[in-house]
């Protein structure tokens, strides 16, 4: 029984983490048809910013502000990174290659990824940042005989909030309606008077904010070290291809499947934890290349 509880709890935790990093990636792809490798860097920047701010304001775990404010600080740090770096990347670089197919933008964002890797090292150094105050101050809880940190129970709520935000923006706002029309047909939307480049900037920024906020909230659970972006982006690729590139619900399903699969593997066959993720990714791509929820595209002659 304990085993099942552990697998479910870890699976849900891992799924939340995966959804937070994949939602923005798949949203950006859905709108702009760009697979953004630099998404991992935004996650890393968010994690660094969050951890750094918390350590700045509460050095050694105490500070002028009440500790629960640290959650607001994490959120603010993530949003700050997203709304500054996101538009910068889109306006300066990605826009210039938007009409050069799918492969060139992919490689361009890989270049941005390489640059941002070193930007993080230059700004924050190479020593690990451990800002665990928001994590440890909540303590743990006994669940079906298993002691479990409360912070890890809250992370799924953050993931749900992100999903809710995306849903609300796309389905219930004017911006969402415009975005849907741009996805459906870019040229007709432009002819109807929609400022398509601006929509792209907004969409990219929204995706960037999701990645950076995800990074900020995951930071307290482990040390922030150089190279965290590298592992994140490859996992996010796996999740989004499994769910279907461009589909946010797909990313959610992909995150849950991969999360549970990996939790099961870690419990039963720990040496295969990474293998199952990528084998599953390859299997889905082989059987259903558009992913479990991706729309089939008609090839143009």
């Amino acid at each position, binding site marked *: 029984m304990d085993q099942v509880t552990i697998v479910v709890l870890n699976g849900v935790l891992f799924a939340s983490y995966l959804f937070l990093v994949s939602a923005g990636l798949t949203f950006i792809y859905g709108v702009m048809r760009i697979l953004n490798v630099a998404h991992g860097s935004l996650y890393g920047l968010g994690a660094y910013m969050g951890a750094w701010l918390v350590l700045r304001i509460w050095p050694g775990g105490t500070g002028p502000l009440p500790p629960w404010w640290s959650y607001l600080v994490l959120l603010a740090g993530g949003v700050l990174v997203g709304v500054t770096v996101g538009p910068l990347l889109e306006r300066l670089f990605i826009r210039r290659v938007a009409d050069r197919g799918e492969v060139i933008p992919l490689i361009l964002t890989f270049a*941005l990824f390489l640059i941002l890797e070193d930007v993080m090292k230059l700004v924050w150094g190479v020593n690990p940042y451990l800002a665990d105050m928001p994590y440890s101050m909540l303590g743990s809880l006994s669940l079906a005989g298993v002691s479990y940190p409360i912070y890890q129970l809250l992370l799924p709520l953050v993931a749900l909030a992100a999903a809710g935000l995306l849903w609300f923006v796309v389905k219930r706002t004017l911006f969402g309606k415009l975005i849907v029309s741009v996805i459906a047909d870019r040229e007709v939307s432009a002819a109807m008077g929609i400022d398509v480049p601006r929509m792209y900037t907004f969409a990219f920024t929204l995706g960037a904010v999701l990645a950076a906020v995800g990074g900020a909230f995951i930071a307290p659970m482990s040390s922030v070290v150089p190279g965290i972006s590298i592992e994140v982006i490859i996992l996010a690729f796996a999740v989004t291809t499994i769910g279907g590139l461009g589909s946010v619900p797909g990313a959610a399903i992909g995150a849950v499947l991969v999360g549970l699969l990996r939790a099961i593997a870690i419990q039963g066959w720990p040496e295969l934890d990474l293998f199952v993720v990528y084998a599953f*990714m390859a299997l889905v791509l082989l059987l259903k290349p558009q992913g479990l929820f991706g729309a089939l595209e008609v090839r143009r002659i």
Partner: protein
Amino acid sequence: MRRLRDGRTLLLGLVALLLIAPVLPSWLLFLLTIAFAKGLVVLGVVLLLRGDLVSFGHGLYYAGGAYAIGIALKDGFPVRDALVLVALGTLVATLLAAVVGVFIARYRGIFFGMLSTAFTMILYSLLLKLRWLSGGTDGIPVRASTYLGIETSADTVRLVQYYFVLALTAAAVYVVYRVAASPLGYLMRAIYDNEIRVEYMGASVHRAIYRTYVLAGALGGLGGALAAVTVGHISPDMAYWTVSGEFVFVALFGGLGSVFAPLVGSVVFELVRNYAFKLSPYTWQMLLGGVLLAIILFAPGGLWSLFERLAARHAGEPEPPAPAPAEQR
């Protein structure tokens, strides 16, 4: 695949590489040897890029060729001559590509890239975790005792390795040169422009892509095997996706315009990395990223196109148009 005149220049280049080696310091010999080996992997990536297929996972064959040797040696493979070992690594990688190619040749664009990434990450996770097979993160030593039957000492080993790798690289490049000038090579260029029209003309796109993929895999395996024998040690990192990203980087850096461009690109890349890493270990990735950005935005033909434009200006000819790959769409 360009004019014959280039062939003569490059033959001169090869002779120069042969003659200059004895006076080079051993660190530079090692660097060039590795650059040639990796250049072959990049050549495979370039062949696919010419058909608009980005193999963001060519580390699969690079690591596959290397580990075929490593695992064979660990399990008591009797022959320790480098040529036999390299042939073994190349063969295993080619067979792997022949199997993977059956599946992957159906995919295009982003999906081709994603599937290649998935395959190399599968190999990475297996090499990392199956310690009894691969030695885990520690990797495996790969020691060749002779090169084409030639015994080496500590003083001569780098020079012998250099000649060994140079000979195999030249042979492989010649084969690819012939393939690029064959109907298959032209078909790939047509596929880049519009594969459905190629189908309408009666050619099999699937077969062309499959054959190119297997050739690219063989080159990846050959490069990985040569690198393994030269370095003397292999680790799972060879299959990590960032290594594959680096191959794509060098492919674009060198340019897609010629079969020699990947080797030139690879040598320049290794030299730059060597110095950049020594001068400033925390900013060399930034340098790489900056160069890659500049190439994509301002010089889509890579180093090779700059070289061609310079050569044309020098000869007073009109500048050749920038090579099509990586630009039009």
